[in-house]
């Protein structure tokens, strides 16, 4: 019994220590990210790798999510005879919820894993140690530009996801099923609030950007410098990012749209 309590205490202390370590790392990364704005070339390079290279998966996923929303939304709304509200339903679902969340989950899988593996392999190949020995701080030179690029990319990708999703649902709802295009667009225009719906969606995706980028970079930087260590770190990134994003989404939705 006493042993169990001691173990619990040791576990809690270790977790607290880890949390403090992570927080200090986040503060340092944030400060160095601000400084890295002075070297835009490094950020643009990363923006290309993190943002542009994620475009295909984001747009294709957005299109299919839009297709499905069009079908399912029509099926449900039709029961109540209000299928013309399809545009509004789809736009609200995407801008408030699905856009930021699904983009963040895809981002963790596509960009997060590549960030973690890239940093982990640089560590395993002693590239980060070599940089340190040249008097160059790897957190400032390697991690910070990636962090800034991810923060810029995430809201843009989420916006792209939502926009393509709306087009997807328009293709299915209006072009295939035959919902009235006038009411599809006008209900959407009348019912979606720029600040409350789109604005909050953008804030959400910015927060998810911080979460995904920080977890990917932190886990990569702390990875054990072996093939097993890097592969474990890559998995950890996806699992941790997804869970934290989903947890935060619940809290943020409660705070932003009421209910909590």
């Amino acid at each position: 019994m006493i042993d169990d309590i001691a173990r619990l205490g040791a576990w809690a202390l270790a977790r607290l220590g880890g949390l403090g370590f992570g927080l200090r790392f986040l503060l340092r990364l944030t400060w160095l990210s601000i400084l890295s704005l002075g070297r835009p070339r490094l950020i643009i390079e990363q923006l290309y790798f993190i943002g542009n290279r994620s475009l295909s998966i984001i747009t294709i996923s957005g299109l299919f999510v839009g297709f499905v929303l069009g079908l399912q939304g029509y099926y449900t709304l039709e029961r109540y005879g209000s299928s013309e509200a399809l545009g509004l339903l789809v736009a609200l679902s995407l801008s408030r919820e699905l856009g930021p969340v699904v983009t963040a989950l895809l981002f963790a899988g596509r960009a997060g894993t590549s960030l973690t593996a890239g940093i982990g392999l640089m560590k395993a190949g002693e590239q980060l140690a070599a940089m340190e020995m040249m008097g160059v701080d790897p957190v400032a030179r390697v991690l910070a530009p990636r962090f800034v690029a991810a923060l810029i990319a995430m809201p843009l990708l989420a916006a792209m996801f939502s926009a393509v999703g709306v087009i997807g649902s328009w293709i299915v709802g209006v072009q295939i099923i035959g919902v009235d295009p006038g009411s599809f667009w006008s209900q959407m225009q009348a019912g979606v609030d720029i600040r409350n719906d789109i604005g909050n969606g953008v804030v959400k995706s910015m927060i998810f950007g911080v979460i995904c980028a920080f977890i990917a970079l932190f886990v990569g930087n702390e990875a054990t410098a072996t093939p097993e260590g890097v592969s474990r770190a890559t998995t950890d990134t996806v699992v941790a990012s997804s869970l934290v994003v989903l947890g935060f989404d619940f809290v943020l939705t409660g705070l932003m749209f009421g209910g909590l």
Partner: protein
Amino acid sequence: MDNDTFLAVESLSFGYTADRLILKNINMRFRRGSLVALMGGSGCGKTTVLRAIGAQVRPSRGRVMLEGVDVHGLDRAGLAAARRRMGMLFQHGALFTDLNIYENVAFPLREHTDLPGPMIRDLVLMKLHAVGLRGASRLMPSEISGGMARRVALARSIALDPPLLMYDEPFAGLDPISLGTIAHLIRNLNAALGATTMLVTHDVAETFRIVDYAYVMAAGEVIGEGTPEELMASTDPRVTQFLEGRSDGPVPFHYPAVPIAQELGL
């Protein structure tokens, strides 16, 4: 400390855990401009000495004095400045795999100087010329052999003309031609730059041809030191076992274990 000493390691002890020391009370002196080898079997702590000098690990006891300043007492900015004066060649080169050969060598110059592009280009090409790889400047690290990667890393480590050069096992895994080339380069660069040079290695023959002085380490301790001639004349059985490469001796062939008869239940 006398003026002639560029770098001194004083009573250095280090361990990742408190009860198991990897370095035990190491004392070393490196004269300005000398070429000194740190020799010893795998796992004896040679590389850890380099890491302690570069302040990548913090010793549990002792000091590393670089021109009279303890590198472990420096703040982050001071340490970065001290490291700019050290060139380090990592065991496998540690080239940046996302940059080509040219950009790898240009990296320290771009990070630490405000030199105009054409001047950086001239410097990089001169460094690459010194290691014979000017023609390979547009290749990526994945497109060159291990020996070439080592030479590129060598060019990168001398990019800022540092007064201290540290080579971690530069001969490991190289064919005889590449090995000879690297040894020749190390000796020439030491003479040309006047840099104090440390060579971590277990290649006795090649090393004794080029160094001025050598330390022999075993199990985290310095067991012998002197010029190559002095070491060859040593009668310490631990030193002679290493230099002659005998598999058994004071350094046992077997990892500590219970007797084999007991283990097999005989």
